[in-house]
């Protein structure tokens, strides 16, 4: 049976890609951020997962407002990166796992999640950057990937409670799949930041730390909040923490926090990272 071996949550911002391209990992501005990753890279090197389910939000690359899904699941053999508008060189394609994708889609729809399935899907920096951070030596990560995209572009967003249920349903889907597979769940987004409006630059360290603590001590803690309350606490883009919450909810059984990092700022963002292992 397929097993979920653990979960990794991380922030993403396009500037990380530029920092990697320019080899700024040891630069004083970037070092506190990049230093969070070697322990996780080591864990991945030991655990060697076969598949990564990447829970992220599209930033207007694959989806536009003509067809904007609440939850989308990739079901392709390959996923391509593409120009997001800044002319950054595109990455080699990511290998998919269409069979497990269909298991996810079948199981989620049976569980009354109204999934949009995507047999072609462009993946943006929110999908690609965590993989680059976790497997820095590889042009394309050495495992199969499945994109799971959650709408943060246009309200209404799915509630934190709904996202938590999605995570739990992902766990059911994976752990009932007969193939012998090690699956890692990666959540990409947050933590507190706000790009738009006169409150741009808003960061809330106290809430972020409380949220990170909750993922270990009381994972459902954040489901008490409406998205409007999460925006108030974490900024307009801080609501991307829904990716972290969904990821944590997808980890079944006993879950141990192995590592974390938190640093302010990268770009306009409070950057967090956590590694959870399923025991």
């Amino acid at each position, binding site marked *: 049976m397929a097993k979920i071996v653990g979960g990794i949550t991380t922030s993403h*911002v396009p*500037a990380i890609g530029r920092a990697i391209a320019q080899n700024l990992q040891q630069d004083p501005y970037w070092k506190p951020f990049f230093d969070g990753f070697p322990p996780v890279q080591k864990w991945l090197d030991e655990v060697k997962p076969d598949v990564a389910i990447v829970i992220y939000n599209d*930033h*207007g*690359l694959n989806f*536009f*407002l003509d067809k904007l899904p609440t939850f989308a699941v990739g079901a392709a053999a390959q996923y391509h990166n*593409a*120009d*997001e*508008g*800044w*002319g950054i060189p595109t990455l080699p394609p990511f290998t998919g796992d269409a069979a497990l994708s269909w298991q996810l889609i079948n199981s989620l729809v049976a569980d009354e999640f109204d999934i949009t399935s995507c047999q072609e899907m462009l993946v943006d920096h929110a999908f690609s950057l965590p993989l680059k951070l976790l497997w820095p030596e590889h042009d394309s990560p050495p495992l199969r990937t499945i994109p799971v995209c959650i709408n943060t*572009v*246009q*309200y*209404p967003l799915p509630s934190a409670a709904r996202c938590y249920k999605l995570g739990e349903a992902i766990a059911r889907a994976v752990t009932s799949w007969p193939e012998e597979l090690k699956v890692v769940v990666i959540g990409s987004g947050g933590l507190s930041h*706000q*790009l*738009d*409006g*006169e*409150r*741009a*630059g*808003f*960061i*809330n*360290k106290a809430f972020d730390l409380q949220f990170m603590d909750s993922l270990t001590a009381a994972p459902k803690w954040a489901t008490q909040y409406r998205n*409007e309350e999460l*925006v*108030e606490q974490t*900024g*307009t*883009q801080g609501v991307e923490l829904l990716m972290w919450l969904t990821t944590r909810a997808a980890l079944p059984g006993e879950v141990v926090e192995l590592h974390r990092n938190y*640093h*302010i*700022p990268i*770009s*306009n963002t*409070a950057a967090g990272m956590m590694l959870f292992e399923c025991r």
Partner: protein
Amino acid sequence: MTQASGLNVPGTYLFDGDMAMKGYALNKMCFSFNDAANRQAFAADEAGYCWRYGLNDEQSRVVRERDVLGLLAAGGNVYYLAKFAGILGLDVQDLGAAQTGMSKEAFKQMLLEAGK
């Protein structure tokens, strides 16, 4: 500003149905900037490009004036506007400074302070 969504946080707007209706043409134009050829076409003829996407007068004006808060008020969505910012060579800290009325240095200092 209170919205349909019930949010009431100063300087903070949610892109809800009302904004989505208002900003559709503007956002569709910004979405087109994913394509380098479209970015060039815009640069070559801004007015014509805005016209082809059916922007209204207010939207055309805030595009012309690079008025970030005006773009948001005209229904622009931050995820699509980011592609317009890319054309202008502005990073998120430039945008933050422009919206808060701070210098970029002061804005960056504010971010550093948030970490303390």
